[in-house]
């Protein structure tokens, strides 16, 4: 165990220097990207916001089901099959058919080539599960139909969220899918997440609808309130134009009224629709509705055919900027709720870094002093191994751009405390062996050999704990598991290569001395 070939000595040195270098690369600046890597600081250390958003898919499901009813009606009408009494009960579409059509309808709905109930061969499932009781049919989203629906609304939502966050211009945001109805947004360095939160909290569904002449709510109209809550208005349900037709929006100053407004321009289809509606509706009030609230309802004085217009309302420059941003980035398919938020201010992050480094330094110093006190020369060897262990650990974390969190720093300090264990096990074993063995080289060799399985056992158990934490934990705790796990590997390396190499050099040189350890 004590013999090292020249080649091996060189590889150990090269390996150690290579990885240790990256511990220092955090503090040096080079042009070369590879050689000036930095460790990633977690949100708890550099400050920033972590937001977990959940899509509320219920409105989407209801919308899709209503659309499905219209589709079914049209489809069966074309086939000249009478269906009646359509209704939506919860998430179930119900309808009836005549007795002699039951089989026919059933076949159409359960056909693998069905046009109205798509079959997904990969999932071996239709979009809808069909149940029938006599002539009463009920349709429910199948498990996979629902998964596909959720996935597609998540895909749309994540795209919109990305656009909105990018528009605000925070540095290196991290936007990820979580499951099939959640989006994780990490915003490093962001001190105040309030603006982003309010931007993400809005669906931004923009519609233009005429205000009805009638003062009573009737079929085809709905009662909506103004955004400032001052009054209500009866609005026609017919949507003249929606935000989908917008190609651009920006805050501008209206030179006549000296108000901040949002001016927008429309695509070709939108411009055409808008022109047509405004020419027939001269004199009427056009309500501009955002997420079910009327922003303003100007009167149409003349047809607007140029494909551009202005939205006025009680805007400050900030709120006009935000509205323009929302309109440019498009509407979310469904509302998002913030179900988890963690924000750390940058000064607290810096305090945590300072405290972490201070406690690392003190813990390290105490362990080093204790080891020298206990083992003298060999304590020095163990300490050298410990120092290179620390450099290796930080170097590897940097090289792989792992994220360092506050618990991660605790993991490094803990590694310092536990890393000496392996060397202690070896040294204690050597002490025992020297009692019966006069030749120090043989005794040292035996000490290393006999303690090996114990050291492996002991480290594997900690490694198991680190692995489970890595897969089950989240955020900062994950950072802890990474440093703990990598720390075990660097510990084993530093003990079996660095410390053993130094020990062998020392023992061979001093083999004639009495009582080495």
């Amino acid at each position, binding site marked *: 165990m004590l013999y090292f070939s020249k080649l091996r000595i060189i590889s150990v040195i090269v390996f150690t220097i290579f990885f240790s270098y990256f511990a220092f690369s955090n503090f040096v600046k080079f042009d070369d990207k590879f050689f000036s890597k930095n460790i990633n600081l977690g949100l708890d250390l550099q400050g920033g916001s972590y937001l977990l958003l959940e899509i509320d898919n219920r409105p989407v499901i209801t919308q899709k089901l209503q659309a499905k009813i219209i589709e079914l009606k049209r489809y069966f009408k074309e086939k000249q099959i009478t269906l009646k009494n359509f209704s939506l009960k919860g998430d179930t579409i119900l309808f009836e058919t005549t007795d002699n059509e039951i089989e026919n309808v059933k076949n159409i709905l359960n056909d693998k080539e069905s046009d109205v109930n798509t079959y997904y061969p990969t999932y071996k499932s239709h979009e809808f599960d069909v149940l029938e009781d006599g002539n009463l049919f009920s349709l429910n989203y199948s498990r996979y139909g629902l998964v596909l629906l959720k996935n597609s609304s998540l895909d749309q939502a994540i795209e919109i969220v990305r656009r909105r966050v990018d528009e605000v211009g925070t540095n290196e945001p991290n936007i990820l899918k979580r499951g099939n109805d959640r989006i994780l947004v990490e915003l490093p360095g962001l001190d105040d997440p309030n603006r982003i939160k309010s931007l993400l909290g809005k669906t931004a569904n923009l519609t233009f609808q005429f205000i009805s002449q009638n003062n009573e709510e009737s079929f085809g109209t709905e009662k909506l309130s103004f955004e400032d809550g001052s009054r209500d208005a009866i609005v026609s349900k017919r949507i003249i134009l929606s935000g989908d037709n917008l190609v651009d929006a920006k805050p501008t100053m209206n030179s006549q009224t000296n108000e901040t407004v949002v001016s927008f321009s429309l695509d070709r289809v939108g411009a055409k629709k808008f022109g047509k509606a405004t020419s027939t509706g001269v004199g009427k009030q056009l309500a501009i509705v955002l997420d079910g609230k009327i922003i303003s309802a100007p009167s149409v004085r003349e047809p607007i055919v140029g494909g551009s217009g202005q939205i006025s309302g009680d805007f400050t420059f900030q709120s006009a900027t935000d509205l323009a941003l929302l309109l440019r980035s498009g509407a979310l398919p469904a509302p998002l709720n*913030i179900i988890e938020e963690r924000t750390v201010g940058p000064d607290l992050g810096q305090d945590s870094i300072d*405290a972490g480094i201070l406690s690392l330094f003190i813990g390290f110093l105490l362990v080093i002093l204790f080891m020298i006190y206990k083992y003298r020369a060999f304590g020095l060897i163990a300490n050298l191994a410990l120092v290179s262990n620390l450099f290796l650990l930080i170097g590897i974390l940097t090289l792989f751009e792992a994220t360092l969190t506050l618990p991660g720093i605790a993991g490094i300090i803990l590694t310092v405390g536990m890393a000496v264990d392996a060397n202690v096990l070896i040294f204690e074993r050597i002490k025992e062996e020297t009692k019966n063995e006069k030749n120090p080289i043989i005794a040292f060799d035996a000490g290393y050999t006999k303690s090996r399985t114990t050291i492996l056992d002991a480290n594997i158990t900690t490694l198991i704990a680190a692995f*489970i934490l890595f897969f089950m934990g989240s955020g900062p705790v994950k950072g802890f598991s990474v440093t703990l796990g990598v720390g075990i590997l660097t510990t084993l390396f530093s003990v079996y290569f660095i410390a053993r190499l130094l020990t062998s050099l020392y023992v061979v040189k001093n083999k004639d001395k009495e009582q080495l350890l």
Partner: protein
Amino acid sequence: MSNISFNKFYRKFNILSLVLIVISLVFLIFKGLNYGVDFKGGTLIELRTTDKTNNISLIRDSFNQMNLGDVSVKKFGNETDFIVKFEKQNSNDPEFIKNIQNKLSSSIGDVDFRRVENVGPKVSSELLKSGIIAISLSLAAMLLYIWIRFEWQFSLGAILAIFHDVIITLGIFSIFSLEINLSIVAAVLTIVGYSMNDTVVIFDRVRENLRKYSDIKIFDLTNISINETLSRTIITSVTTLLALFSIYLFGGEILKGFSLAMILGVIFGTYSSIYIANPILVALNVSQRTIVKEEKD
């Protein structure tokens, strides 16, 4: 090498452990754990006031006026730093935190929100579930590992020792109403690893000695093994505790609970390797035959 008769006190310490476990369980069952916002849901705000005359009751009063449910206020490190926790979390109102800050500023002067954690009920119950799964999974993995490496008597001893450490550590958290959050779960998992580590070192030696001496009874054999590994046990515990105390004292308020749990875990882990794991081997009457039979297979 030391020669302490640890085995003389097996029974006494077993009774002590049993009493501690019973007390811990009683507290865990009847008082329960003080879950933080991670597991209970709600909002946590770490704030710093500019006005030094602000005190806990003043801050509590301002928060109580806002209808946020149960409010708790605690000092956090500095004179001017406080941790405020309350039940309400509002995911539908993006202005929720901003409004609180505005109201607070008007009643107690400028405040800086240094940290905000807002966890919804769904997320908190998921976090709790995954925390429990993580701990159970690690226990199962340890059990499996030691079962493969040793004989079943040993794995029973090691697992009971781990249960002992985890239950008593959590019991202490319950008795003193210390907060359980995500980092405590990480600490408990590390305790599991450490306790296992410590037990395995002694067990390795017990097994080695079982092969070496056929005429020594397990009662004395465990004592020899404990003594042979004692200086390692002490040195490693000391260095680990040095590191942990350094985190506890200098690592900032956020790591206090984590490092305290770890300190308790290391102390009980070291103790249980000697006084729980080994007496189990004695009780199960492990002998040379136990391991020889296994090795013939």
